[in-house]
């Protein structure tokens, strides 16, 4: 069995985020990055399948040089090999273009299972996973809370509103976009990290994958116009006095606003 796990490297959750002066994105130069939290759970889920049965886990990511760090961490945790699409022409790609690149890797690899995170901590698009599935003509499930293989089928539990779960059956090959918190993500042992250097890490370009015309700013159908932090609005009105005064004041305010 072959499992492809798509990872994104995102700004570290503790990083200080400053918006670039032209408003196009955040300043990335001096901040730390980490694997997107959703993707760590996806990777762990793939590694658990590998723990139980013979499986090759391939991790793939798109990004500049720093992205090798994320891939090496994944290799240190137990993935077998990595594919790194490191190509400046990919910059400015929209979600569909990213999906096309990952799908191109998927076509080369022909995995039985593809794991992605449900969304990325930074972009919040939540669309790459389903788009990759569509491009690979695979069934998919999103917000996956658990996954178990039963022969040629995969049984997944999906998270619904209000805490309900939906159990779905997917025919292999399929794609699962994983929710956070569904498992305990393992640590990479230090020996694993050191040994990860010896595991194969292929660096590819968009042209290698035959998608050079489909990616980058030129091909993007969604262009980011601006990123900004909304200005702070004036603070809330604080009602003071006894409990009765506060309660009466609150009711008066609600009536004044026509909410009752």
């Amino acid at each position: 069995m072959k499992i492809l796990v798509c990872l994104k490297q995102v700004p570290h959750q503790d990083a200080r985020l400053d918006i670039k002066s032209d408003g196009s994105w955040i300043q990335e130069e001096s901040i730390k990055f980490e694997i997107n939290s959703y993707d760590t759970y996806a990777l762990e889920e793939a590694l658990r399948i590998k723990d139980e049965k013979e499986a090759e886990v391939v991790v793939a990511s798109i990004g500049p040089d720093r992205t090798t760090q994320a891939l090496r961490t994944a290799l240190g945790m137990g993935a077998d090999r990595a594919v790194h699409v490191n190509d400046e022409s990919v910059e400015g790609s929209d979600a569909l273009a990213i999906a096309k690149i990952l799908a191109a890797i998927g076509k080369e690899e022909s995995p039985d299972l593809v794991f992605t995170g449900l969304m990325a901590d930074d972009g919040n698009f939540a669309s790459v996973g389903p788009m990759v599935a569509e491009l690979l003509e695979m069934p998919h499930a999103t917000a996956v809370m658990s996954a178990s293989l039963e022969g040629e089928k995969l049984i997944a539990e999906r998270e619904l509103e209000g805490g309900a779960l939906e159990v779905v059956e997917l025919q292999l090959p399929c794609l699962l976009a994983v929710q956070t918190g569904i498992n305990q993500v393992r640590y990479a042992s230090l020996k694993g990290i050191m040994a990860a250097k010896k595991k194969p890490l292929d660096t590819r370009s968009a042209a290698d994958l035959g998608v050079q015309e489909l990616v980058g700013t030129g091909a993007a159908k969604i262009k980011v116009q601006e990123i900004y932090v909304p200005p702070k609005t004036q603070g809330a009105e604080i009602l003071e006095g006894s409990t009765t005064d506060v309660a009466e004041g609150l009711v008066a305010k609600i009536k004044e606003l026509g909410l009752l």
Partner: protein
Amino acid sequence: MADNLYINEDLEALRTEFNRFVVNEIVPQGDNWEEQGHVPREVLQQMGTLGFLGLRHPEKFGGLGLGPLSSAVFAESLGASTYAGFEVTVLVHTDMASPHLIHSGNDDQLERFMGPIVSGDCITAIAVTEPAAGSDVAGIQSTAKKIDGGYVLNGSKTYITNGVHADLLIVAARTDGDNPRGLSMFLVKSDNPGLSVSRALSKHGWRSSDTAELLFSDCFVEDADLLGTPHKGFYEIMKNFQNERLVLSGMAVGASQKALDITYDWTQTRKAFGGVLFDKQVIRQRLAMLQARLDASRQFLYHCGWLMEQGVDATREVSGLKAVSCELVNEVMYDCLQFHGGLGYMQEATIERMARDARILPIGGGATEVMLEEISKRSYR
């Protein structure tokens, strides 16, 4: 990109794992360990399984065989846990006690102990300090008398970190009469009937670290457990001084940055005089100066690690690092606690614990005053 010249991709990857472990496994449990006065063995064993306890130890014993820079990274990462008692429990084992075995142990001793040391099944402590001899190692009064087949140890040791729960103690005792430097080192297992914990000590800080007063009473140690050359223990002890000071400085740097980060957060949310505290220039600038000094101190930490990695004698530099970083961490804690106001004085505040924990750093592992003498001796022609 690594944030300093000395850190390669490997060390950066290790740092990521250390930081993650601290956030997920240490911070949520630290309060309990402070309460119970020691770190549970399972946590140390988990660290062993992940390879954290063998950074510096040879690969044939399950270690990674890395150099002093890895210890600096490790200590700085642990230093951000805010539970320095936990940090020192680990670092005494990895960087202050067990290295003596590597420096001075024979094949038989290494074979017997290094595997369990790396896995966390055998935790170590270093027993040098006595009621009458701290930084002045030559003042040790405990004796080891040679008899047939071994030595008999008598005397007491105090302020021994890991002293209550360690499995293996590395003990210095006098073996050469009045010769002030005539010490030898011994491997003493904690179940030796001649060794007892006379007192578990209650401390100002580092409360999740177990600290003991030990009594050696006709404690018989076989010849096979003499560590290194007889009567040369003074020099064997000194072999690890720089490493010990490097990791204590790493703890100081990690703790300083964490305290500043906590205080940035606090001063940017705490309302006072129509704004937040951080609006006050006096507060911003005090924190900024501490940050600048810490940035310098941090680079010095890695520079010292690199010097040691080159195998050069870095006594002057490491002594300076220890003095600067361990004094600085106390200045940082003073101001950070001050800017927390009344909350900073409450035990529920992280900064309160950090301030207590930091106080030992300019004392242990070579007091600042001793460090300054080390620099002084090497600073003029």
